[in-house]
């Protein structure tokens, strides 16, 4: 298997806190790679280092063999790195379709014209927007302003927006958090049916979702990689249970209800 993304010795501190500490991570093309770990483990920070939203203190990031450590977030996006944020981050004055169209135009429509669009390219963009919204289950929501959506729907728009960027590597930060069971099921469907050219690296607290989707799992703890392996191996590893619960009571770990984002979950780092 060839690595699509690999980072070596990646570190980032906030003051005295080493949020990400010498992380080595390889994501192979075509995999569904889950990143798990307790609250404050540094998962979101790691993702931000990958997208370029944050600058690393040290270490390198390669995408498809190219060193992207020094590239801006914009350039990385153009190279096929796309993400959804843990907190919903959309364009509140626009409709659902307009939100997605912004990304479609940037990644598929060619240049961003400063003249009102002609009919041809416009329809092309519209069709792609329709397809993405249909896939995300938002077909009948397209003319609503995003500020009128429920939280779960807004997260689906996030996903459609990320997919509209035509990613090679899709990074999802807790895509299922705050979704209803039905929405979460649709999300699972959507991610499962993504074409194999799209590699996915996702953070998720809902371990049922993790084991339903992931082909590979990395556990992060206190900013360091605890281990990486197949889902089955992870499930049985005592170190993982210890990291999560501070106990080795396996039963607790896998019957914890899916936590909702934002609430404190034990154990938290200072």
């Amino acid at each position, binding site marked *: 298997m060839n690595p699509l993304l690999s980072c070596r010795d990646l570190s980032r501190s906030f003051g005295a806190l080493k949020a990400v500490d010498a992380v080595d991570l390889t994501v192979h093309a075509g995999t569904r790679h889950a990143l798990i770990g307790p609250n404050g483990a540094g998962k979101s920070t790691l993702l931000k280092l990958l997208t370029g939203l*944050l*600058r690393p203190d040290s270490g390198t990031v390669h995408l498809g063999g190219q060193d992207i450590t020094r590239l*801006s*977030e914009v350039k990385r996006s153009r190279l096929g790195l796309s993400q959804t944020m843990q907190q919903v981050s959309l364009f509140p004055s626009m409709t659902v379709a307009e939100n997605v169209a912004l990304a479609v135009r940037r990644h598929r429509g060619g240049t961003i014209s400063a003249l009102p669009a002609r009919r041809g390219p416009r329809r092309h963009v519209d069709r792609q927007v329709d397809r993405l919204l249909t896939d995300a289950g938002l077909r009948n929501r397209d003319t609503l302003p995003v500020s009128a959506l429920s939280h779960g729907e807004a997260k689906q728009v996030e996903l459609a927006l990320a997919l509209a960027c035509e990613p090679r590597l899709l990074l999802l930060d807790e895509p299922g958090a705050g979704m209803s069971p039905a929405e979460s099921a649709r999300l699972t469907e959507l991610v499962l049916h993504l074409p194999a050219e799209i590699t996915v690296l996702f953070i998720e607290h809902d371990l049922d979702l993790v084991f339903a989707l992931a082909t590979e799992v990395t556990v992060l703890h206190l900013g360091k990689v605890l281990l990486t392996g197949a889902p089955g191996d992870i499930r049985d590893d005592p170190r993982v249970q210890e990291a999560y619960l501070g106990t080795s009571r396996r039963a607790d770990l896998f019957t914890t209800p899916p936590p909702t984002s934002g609430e404190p979950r034990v154990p938290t780092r200072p």
Partner: protein
Amino acid sequence: MGSWFEANLVSVLNGGAIGCLLFILAIGLSLVFGMMNVLNLAHGAVFLAGAFIGWRIGGESPTWGTFALAVGAATLLGLLAGAVLSAMTEPLRNRSHLDQALLTLGIALVAAELLSMTFGNDVRATNAPPGLDGTVPVLGTDYPVYRLFLIAAGLLLAVTAWLVVSRTAAGAVIRATVADREMVSAIGIDDRKVKLAVFAVGSALAAVAGVLGGPVYGARPGLDSTVLILALVVVVIGGLGSVKGALIGALVIGQIESLGRALFAEAASFILFGALAVVLVLRPQGLFGRADMAGAPR
């Protein structure tokens, strides 16, 4: 080099004096923004009010008594103006910077207009108090003592401000508020009281700077926006919320204003812009500013 320096010594010293005035002015602006996240564009008007008070109380030739009285009155007026500004901006706490800027601009326009209605449109020049109104020979040139006094006063204030901010309990609150305002209110310090205090002290400094600046600039309409812009440039160059930045920025801009104008008359404004541009292209957050305040990538 030596002869160049001698020839331009007066300009260099003038620049130092202007720089010290700007520092006093800028530090209030910088702290009010750095701590309270409010851009106070009425700051220049407070300075001008101070200058007019100096003239009104001291007349053209103040004695030490009237000069001290003017400084006291300006301090009081500044404290009061700061309190009013703090109260007026309070309802805009959750509004955009543009709204706050427009409000303080509106206040500045009204205040400047009221001042010109009260004091007229002439330049109201004042002299320095006795003892400071003469000149001393400096390297063969006669130089006004008062400007040396300004430099000394500015440096003294810089040291005081630095000591207060870095060594005292109040300074600790100031630094903590600059760093993380929510955290400070979370530990039970009343955000509004801090704001009131900072506004009041900042405005009092501006008003006193006005009295001190009277003998240099002369109180006149339009002076408010001139000094406001210079103070803004100082703050932008130095970095918001930083005492050290305000000092360095003020000294640099003081030299550009004085030496630049002496050497390049017509082009001085270009130089001012050039300095601003160079600093901001290299460091968008200013020399000593924190990156996240300017929204730079981290």
